């Protein structure tokens, strides 16, 4: 267990087993038959940890999804709530309890907070007068291993709560997750922080580690470096249309906690199909990281070879061969066939959506926004989308990109675009724009120069000097926009292939730079454009490991000798996209790194924007 597994990935199954054990022991604290009421957003993560049969075995009678609009709930005499610590949730639970009391129904209640209980929640319970009749415990579920190289906290609200509302509650959870991870996989030697939240996580992590140091065993080292990246360093990448297969699956169907649900239109049957998307699915593993343009071709060739395998049965000579074929091969082939059929079906759906509705023009605009060319045409295109009442998220995405790539929108255009957007999609979007302004995603150039987010502060100063926006400068310095138009999407040589060679994701490029330089030295020209600044730290102690000197510079050569130093944990605060994961996987293959991606949640442009949008009144 201690040694990295065959392919060099640390074994994260341990996290799953730990979480499972913790959860079952929590269930056992309430012996006997009980109902389980689960917060909707915890359903899928829990599914990955504990199966329904395990829950039943532990006395769980019925499983309900938590619905805060219900004033009362029925069920058996014991009930466990498994919830995120939110005040509104607490109020609803108190309502349930009080309604039981009113009809004199005796029930035992237990609230399990994920990942920890908060004082504010308890104060709500106290205020509602139900504190006396509930038992309260914590379930420290942090990382849900989605794949062998992907860990997610499944906390999509991080983005809104931290960057918009300045609430640091989840920073603690992130730090705690790293502490717990290191308790399993050993202390991480090098820590690089990009952004404000990253620094905060690092500080808190160090503090928590110091406090626990006597209890933990740091003799193992499975992860060499940790790179923490704030999402507000790079809002551009998640807003770009994803073009890899996995990314498109997420944008089209929505991947939830590593599982996808295909409707009848994909499966071609009556019922829908649920698929676990990870490296265990050999076909998916082959296509997930491909640019969409060569997915269908691959799948069809796969279909042909599968057909050949099937055809083998005609060539079977003896009864023994036949028996063998049916016993071993047939089952596997049948499974593969159904998986393949689903993937082909999904491709058709994606293709259908992409050829319709002017997707090409849209992509064209997106790319020219990234390049910073044809500004007038792009604005016209956005306006056209508004006039045609096109999808509100799609349109908003382009407005965001326009602002981010240009350091804000000129006051005139800003006003007119906002007006048009409100006319098309309703007055409540006024709040959305106010939120986006606070986040620094959509700003006007005027306010950008006065106040606002640090991004714009730095940017405006720069703009005056170089007459180029922050983003454009970063593009130039890091050559994010490849010069040549022709990129081999089939056998890519550059990370930009995930966006058809139009753009290399900034976040991933930064990771590459930090790793090749072994820190931030020599990157001052780049880091000055990044909001929140950068920070690096070295925890490798000379006494512990003689092969690694303390100094960062000389450590670079030594690190190459040790396989562990090639294992890099990249932690996205505020979520990351599948395209970024794919790009990092590609970078790993190219440069010989083993990347493990940790994130607060897996996002895409739609989920990211939706989380900060004002919901229309019902």
């Amino acid at each position, binding site marked *: 267990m201690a040694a990295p597994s065959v392919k060099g990935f640390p074994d994260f199954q341990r996290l799953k087993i730990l979480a499972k054990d913790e959860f079952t022991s929590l269930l056992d604290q309430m012996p006997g038959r009980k109902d389980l009421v689960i917060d909707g957003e915890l359903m899928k993560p829990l599914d990955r940890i504990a199966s329904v049969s395990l829950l039943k075995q532990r006395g769980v009678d019925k499983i309900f999804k938590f619905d805060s609009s219900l004033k009362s709930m029925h069920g058996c005499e014991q009930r466990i709530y498994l919830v995120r610590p939110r005040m509104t949730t607490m109020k609803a639970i108190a309502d349930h309890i009080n309604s039981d009391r009113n009809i004199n129904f005796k029930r035992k209640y237990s609230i399990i907070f994920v990942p920890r209980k*908060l004082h504010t929640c308890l104060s709500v319970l106290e205020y509602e007068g139900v504190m006396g009749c509930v038992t309260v415990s914590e379930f420290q579920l942090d990382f849900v291993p989605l794949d062998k190289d992907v860990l997610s906290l499944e906390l999509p609200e991080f983005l809104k709560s931290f960057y918009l509302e300045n*609430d640091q509650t989840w920073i603690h959870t992130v*730090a705690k997750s790293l502490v717990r991870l290191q308790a399993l996989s050993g202390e991480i030697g090098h820590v690089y922080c990009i952004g404000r939240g990253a620094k905060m996580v690092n500080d808190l992590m160090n503090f928590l580690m110091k406090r626990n140091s006597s209890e933990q065993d740091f003799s193992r080292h499975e992860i060499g470096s940790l790179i923490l990246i704030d999402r507000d360093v790079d809002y551009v990448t998640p807003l770009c249309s994803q073009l890899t297969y996995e990314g498109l699956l997420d944008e089209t169907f929505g991947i939830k906690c590593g599982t996808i649900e295909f409707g009848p239109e994909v499966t071609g049957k009556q019922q829908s199909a649920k698929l676990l998307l990870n490296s265990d699915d050999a076909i998916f593993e082959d296509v997930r990281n491909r640019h969409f343009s060569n997915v269908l071709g691959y799948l069809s060739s796969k279909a042909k070879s599968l057909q050949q395998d099937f055809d083998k049965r005609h060539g079977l000579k003896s009864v023994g061969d036949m028996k063998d074929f049916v016993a071993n091969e047939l089952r596997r082939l049948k499974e593969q066939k159904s998986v393949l059929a689903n993937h082909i079906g999904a491709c058709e759906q994606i293709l259908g959506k992409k050829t319709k509705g002017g997707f090409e023009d849209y992509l064209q605009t997106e790319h020219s926004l990234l390049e910073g060319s044809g500004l007038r045409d792009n604005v016209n295109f956005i306006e056209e989308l508004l006039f045609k*009442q096109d999808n509100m998220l799609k349109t908003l995405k382009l407005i965001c990109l326009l602002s981010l790539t240009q350091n804000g929108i000129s006051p005139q255009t800003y006003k007119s675009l906002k007006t048009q957007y409100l006319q*098309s999609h309703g*007055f*409540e979007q*006024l*709040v959305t724009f106010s939120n986006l302004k606070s986040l620094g995603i959509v700003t006007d150039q005027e306010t950008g120069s006065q106040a606002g987010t640090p991004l714009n502060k730095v940017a405006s100063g720069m703009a005056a000097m170089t007459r180029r926006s922050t983003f454009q400068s970063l593009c130039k310095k890091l050559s994010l926009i490849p010069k040549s138009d022709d990129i081999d999407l089939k056998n890519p040589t550059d990370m930009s292939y995930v966006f058809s060679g139009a753009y290399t994701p900034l976040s991933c490029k930064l990771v590459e730079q930090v790793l090749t330089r072994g820190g931030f030295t020599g990157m001052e020209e780049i880091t000055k454009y990044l909001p929140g600044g950068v920070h690096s730290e070295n925890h490798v102690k000379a006494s512990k490991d003689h092969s690694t000197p303390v100094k960062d510079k000389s450590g670079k050569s030594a690190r190459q000798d040790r396989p562990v130093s090639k294992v890099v944990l990249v932690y996205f605060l505020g979520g990351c996209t599948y395209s970024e994961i794919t790009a990092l996987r590609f970078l790993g293959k190219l440069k010989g790194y083993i990347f493990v991606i940790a994130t607060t949640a897996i996002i895409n442009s739609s989920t990211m924007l939706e989380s900060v949008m004002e919901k229309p009144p019902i």
Partner: protein
Amino acid sequence: MATADWNPLGEIYYKKCEVYSMGWSDIVDISKFEVSAAPYGGPIALLKDESKTARVQVSTKPIITVFTAAGKQISQMRWNSGSIHKMGWSHTEDLLFVQDDGVVLVYDMFLTFKKTFGMGQEAKDVKVIDCKIFSSYQGTGIAVLTSTYRVFIINSVDDPRIRRLAEVPGLSSAPSSWAVINLDRQSRALIAKGSELCLIDQGGQYQVQTPDVSTEVTQFLAMSLSFNNRCLAMFTDKGVIWIGSSDLQKKYCEFNTKSPTPPQQLSWCGAGAVVGLWGNMMLVVGPDKDWINFNFDNPVHLVEEEDGLRIIGKYQHEFLYKVPEVTEKIFKIGSMEPGAMLFEASKEFYKGSQKADEYIRIIKDKLEIAVSQCIEAAGHEIDPAKQKPLLRAAAFGKCFLTDYNPEAYVNMCQMLRVLNQVRNHVIGIPLTYSQLQHLSMPILIDRLVLRKLFYYAVKICQYLKIADAEGASRILAHWACYKVQQKNEDDETIARAINQKLGDTPGISYSDIANHALEEGRPDLATRLLDFEPRAGQQVPLLMKMHKDNIALSKAIESGDTDLVYTVLLHLKESMNQGEFFMAIRNMPIAYALFIQYCRQQNRKLMEDLFYQEDNFQEEGTCKVVNSFNEDRMEDRIEELKLAQACFTKAKNEFAKVQTEEQIKLLKYQQRLEEEMNRPYLNLSLHQTIYRLTLANNHKVAEQLRKEFKVPDRRFWWLKINALGECGDWVELERFSKGKKAPVGMEAFVEVCAKHGNMKEAMKYLVKVSPEQKVKCLVKVGERKKAAETAFENKNEEELSYVLSKCGPSDKQLVDTIRGMKQQMSRR
């Protein structure tokens, strides 16, 4: 000879040895004091009640003095409460005083008052005539006998819960003797009533028993239970000592002392012999009627231990104990036990005699037993001079064993080192090896801490390599708690001294120490100490307790743990008035942001107040906008929006102000439309509203809205074309196309027709499409062939490629044609 001081008692031997020569010899005359000593080598308390000895009635209160077992004075005080009936020690070495009104006072060995409790109203009303302090399964218990001959009992002085035992039937005078028996997790009292014994319990049950005594008995004058509560000794009025089991089922022996008076003390020496003390004469009686007689020069006091008896006198502190079996095996004259042989061998070896070899040969195959015997015997020796040769013998024997596990040997050496140290008269805890086994090392360390011997305790921990968390740091924490009580030193010095010693030792809780300082009434010292506390989670609650709310808040913020920040914030909110509270948090952006988060979910009104106070009109306006969504009644909603509008005006946000204004207007429109048309229009955007109106063929109102809200032409055209296309109103669409020149171009019309599958209509507009858009439009209506031809005519290669890219697998022929065209063009 090693056996010289052994006194045979039947088959076994008893040995009396001096532990200390008492440090009090020139000041204390033990006969003038009431004496009480704690077991396990605990301290000795002396109570001098002058009213008892004085010939004239004096009203002075008694003096209490506490000494170590070696006679070194620890503390002294003059009693200032009621009349003491009984004095005794608890298992945590607290001194207990039971007054005749049943009040129990608890002091520590430094005679610092700890707590007090009573033994119940009845005991208070009728007075206590006798009292027993006994060791119960829960710690130390107290039983009192009232003047009404009822027994009240508590099982633990830490958690005093008074229980009344059953009444002894027909008890009309005070019992001649009584005792508390503690067996099977239950405490019962054995009361002697004439020749009968009555066992009473908490459940109200009683049991009358008559023990089997061969001589006539009228009264049992004394009784005593062995340390383990299994054996009982009684003294009858005829001078007979009866020894048996405590359940009175078994009798071991009767011994006639021929003494008419009962002994001053009737005790047990371990569980093996009964000891009676008459004046300066002590009689030891074994279970088989064997006896030994000791005489003393001075009065003595007996203290029972689990493995022997301590005899405290004016000059000496002695210990009487049964010679352990293993010691006997080694030292008994003529013993052939392996241990004895090994001991001899070792002695000869160090003398340089070859006899050593002979001895070893004799016990060759029993060498392992021999070694462990020597080790064990060394443990039982009190004098280091006697421990040494035994250990040396063990070490010698060990050499001949190939795979002997040295753990037992090493452990014993370490234990003896510790034991010899604590037995030293400076510390004065005369523990035996078996007592330490029973007491356990952590408790011994606790006892050292209790005596404020912090340095010794730490050294022992370090010597035994006890983990810091359980050992050294715990002791240091105790030391610090003691340190903060020193009122003569100033806060700064103490804080620095504590930090210097404790540093960052893991397991130290500065907040506990600070809490202690606070209890001692030194809040400033507590604050200083809290500065050293790294765990904000511990620090913050205490700071709040000390009303240092502002420090608490900033510490909580520093910790990065929002939960803590909320804890302080909610506390502040409760304890301050709103204005002060707002002022307090306005300079702390993180606290401010968190509080707003809290309000967003719990109290939106408060959030608006906060924004208002901060002149943050923009946010206040946004708040009101969001509020408006939750209003059910249209009037309220508009009212809320009007307020928002006012806020935006103050915030100088012209854009938001105008938009809000327009929204109010739109809402009013929509409301009117709903009333008139009986269709839902509310909450639609402007675009959607006009679209719906167009669908409903209500072009007039649509036009009106368009003008009212200054909808751009391009939007309006797209809107109308799409809406008409959707409802299939081709006539109206045609009329519309013929009106003003379309700002969106004719291709929009083509697109809409194509979208709704009406190719015939599409063709109508196609002719009017501008030449540069023609190819695209043709493709849209599906006329790829025509498109290709047009592109060819236009001689536009780009357009040709566009058509080509739109060709599917079914257009094979066309693809070939286009390729041909392209070739043709490039050739030219």
